[in-house]
């Protein structure tokens, strides 16, 4: 009898992982480079579940005698948690994580100075703004970046911190990084924005700020 419950549990877990992969919700939890491993895990669970159902009349000694029902229940709780909460880190965690100063941010991706300035990513602009020399060279360059708004009592006046979470492996190691944007506009924390502007005196001055829906890919690495 327990083999049926084990088969259902791991089958549900596999389907849940597959759903996360197909809906691109894994991007809210882990770095995309690990997605293929999670997909393989989903396949293992689904195939395992089918095998357990197909051969349920055979003797599954270890599952019958050593797997506790609570273990199956605990695993299914993971699925319940995901289905009942919204995924993604918010600015509420800034208090727990602290803010990483721009000059201390270390990114994994390769910076390419030769691409058009409007096509540069959030990470590219961090790379530029960290360096006084690069910032000077980019004076007047057009900027087009996406992030979420964050301001607190320490934020300079007429500034919004356009922010992202930087992850190395998964959301558990996320660091909060932000680029100050000069603007008179006010936006609530966690509102995702598309900022278009230009570099002036080493800072980004906004020309237009558009509210956008939360993107699927929220983190940078």
């Amino acid at each position, binding site marked *: 009898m327990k083999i049926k419950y084990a088969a259902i549990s791991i089958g549900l877990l596999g389907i849940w992982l597959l759903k996360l992969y197909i809906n691109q919700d894994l991007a809210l939890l882990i770095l995309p480079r*690990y997605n293929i491993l999670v997909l393989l895990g989903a396949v293992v669970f689904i195939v395992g579940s089918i095998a357990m159902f197909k051969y349920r009349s055979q003797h599954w000694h270890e599952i019958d005698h050593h797997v506790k029902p609570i273990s199956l229940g605990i695993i299914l709780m993971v699925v319940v948690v995901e289905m009942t909460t919204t995924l993604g880190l918010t600015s509420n965690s800034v208090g727990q994580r602290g803010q990483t100063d721009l000059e201390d941010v270390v990114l994994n991706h390769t910076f390419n100075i030769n691409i058009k300035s409007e096509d540069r990513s959030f990470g590219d602009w961090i790379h530029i703004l960290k360096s006084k020399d690069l910032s000077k060279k980019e004076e007047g360059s057009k900027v087009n970046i996406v992030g979420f708004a964050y301001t607190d009592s320490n934020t300079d006046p007429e500034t919004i911190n356009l922010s992202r979470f930087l992850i190395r492996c998964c959301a558990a190691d996320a660091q909060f990084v932000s680029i100050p944007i000069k603007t008179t506009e006010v936006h609530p924390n966690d509102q995702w924005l598309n900022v278009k502007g230009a570099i002036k005196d080493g800072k980004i001055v906004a020309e237009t700020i558009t509210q956008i829906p939360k993107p699927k890919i929220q983190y940078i690495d």
Partner: protein
Amino acid sequence: MNLQDGATIFLSIFVEALPFILLGTAVATYIKYKVRSETILKNLPKSSLGKCAAMSCLGIIFPVCECGNVPVLKGLLQKNVPPSAAISFLLGAPVLNPIVIITTMVAFPNNPEIWIARVGITFAIAVIIGYIFSFAKPEEIIKPQIIAKSCGHTHKPNKIRALDHFFAEAITMLSIITVGAAIAALSQTLIPRPFLIELASNQLLAIIVMMTVAFIISICSTTDAFFALAYSHIFGSSALVAFLVYGPMIDMKILLMLNNVLTKRAIIHITLLATVLTVISTYTWYNLAL
């Protein structure tokens, strides 16, 4: 405490660990059905110290992160590998493997002393702790049900038997990692990192703080070097190395997983020894170097 952030952290740890647990369980199943204990034992040095040193470097062949190492540990113990050597494998393998060494070198390209210290101190601690356990009896270290299942020989590889073992182990480990992930997520959302950083007013406190951070955040050894890099402007090299050495050995989720394999007493001793040795070695290393 924000529920969305807590749930995201919890699920991220679970989903990240899941493939590595499956990989470790697959390796453990392979060991159970394909590897004879005589094969393992005849290739190990004769002395206890030699066995510990050799097994601590087994991560070169099995570069699985610390989550995947616990099922492999269980598999090795069931093949009558001496518990002391298996413990050296548990503590050393998450760091002493090519992937972790390379990522540490990439994260600290201008500070070779950091990856050298990480490798050297991890190796030393893994061997010392393993050797200390060579004076204990196996029943004092390993849970009775693990010893009861040890038969030392390979079973006829039957597909259903292998699947049965694989999924029984995987389900048990995943349920444990779920609890570990929940505790780690709760700790992260309740204990602010800036508060911990403010406590680090001197080198010794900085080492202890970074070890605490490593214990709480419970991230994989394959990427923790980049996480540590973010603290390089706040803490000195000794605290960073302490983080890089301690985290892969002892964290929330590993302790819970070990509870399935080792006795509580053994886990407490491993934790205490790893903690004390990490503090002493990292504090001494840099003071001697200066």
